[in-house]
């Protein structure tokens, strides 16, 4: 029984890794890496480049995605599907980063650019305090 369960657990862990990879592949299918500056070009009126590059870097690291593959309209629902296979590692890492920056927990956000805008306004609000 012990050996059978150990094999079952190994298969389950392998399945978790494979399904996470498939979810990631499905979400990023057909994308080519773009320079961060080029991605920023489409949203330069909404956030500063400093905040933009920080947010891109943090989300890329937290969700284990190349930031050059991340797009402003990417939703956290899609990222969350990948992240659920590691039980919310991405959102936990983002929470940790926000705490380090002295920002509270974010409200529910639809897209990555909405989150970047919220970070910028929160940083501005904390600077004026």
């Amino acid at each position, binding site marked *: 029984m012990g050996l059978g369960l150990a094999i079952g657990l190994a298969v389950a862990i392998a399945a978790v890794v494979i399904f996470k990879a498939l979810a990631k592949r499905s979400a990023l299918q057909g994308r080519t890496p773009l320079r961060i500056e080029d991605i920023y070009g489409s949203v330069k009126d909404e956030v500063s480049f400093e905040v933009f590059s920080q947010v891109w870097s943090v989300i890329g690291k937290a969700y284990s995605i190349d930031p050059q593959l991340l797009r402003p309209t990417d939703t956290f629902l899609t*990222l969350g599907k990948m992240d659920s296979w590691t*039980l919310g590692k991405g959102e936990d890492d983002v929470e940790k980063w926000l705490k380090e920056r002295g920002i509270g927990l974010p409200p529910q956000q639809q897209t990555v650019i909405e989150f970047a805008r919220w970070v910028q306004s929160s940083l501005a609000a904390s600077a004026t305090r």
Partner: protein
Amino acid sequence: MAFGGGIGSGGGLSAGGFGTGATEPTETQAAEADESYIDEIIVTAKRPRADGPSYMDRYVDWTSDHVINVGPYVAALAGGLWPKSLSLATGGRPPLLGSTNPLTSVPRAFGFPGADTAIARTGAAGIGLITVGIGFYNVTILLEGFLYAIPD
């Protein structure tokens, strides 16, 4: 047995005879007769028959042979999944941003060191997955048992 003669033995209901013109059974007697009938059915299902085990015996035997009984390995659940809303280490905070995943790992929920590592998270997700798998398998066996227990 208290209901000794049973329904078909000539004792019980037919002894007094519902249609014999003797006395009509009272409500109490009728209720007792119903109870006896139900008891007889239950005992018949449990009692080994002369030609082999009863339906219940066959069901229990078959399901016991086929369910996955994890025994002491159930302790692995301590490394499995836990609802975020009951997580002590994170204050029960709900999923962040646009995530809809309500689960975290048990080690993270209780703030154990190293719970944030990818290995611990993937292991917990694996334990969760195998738990659900074994659960579904066992439920299937319990249901299938009703069919397999039917005598040939």
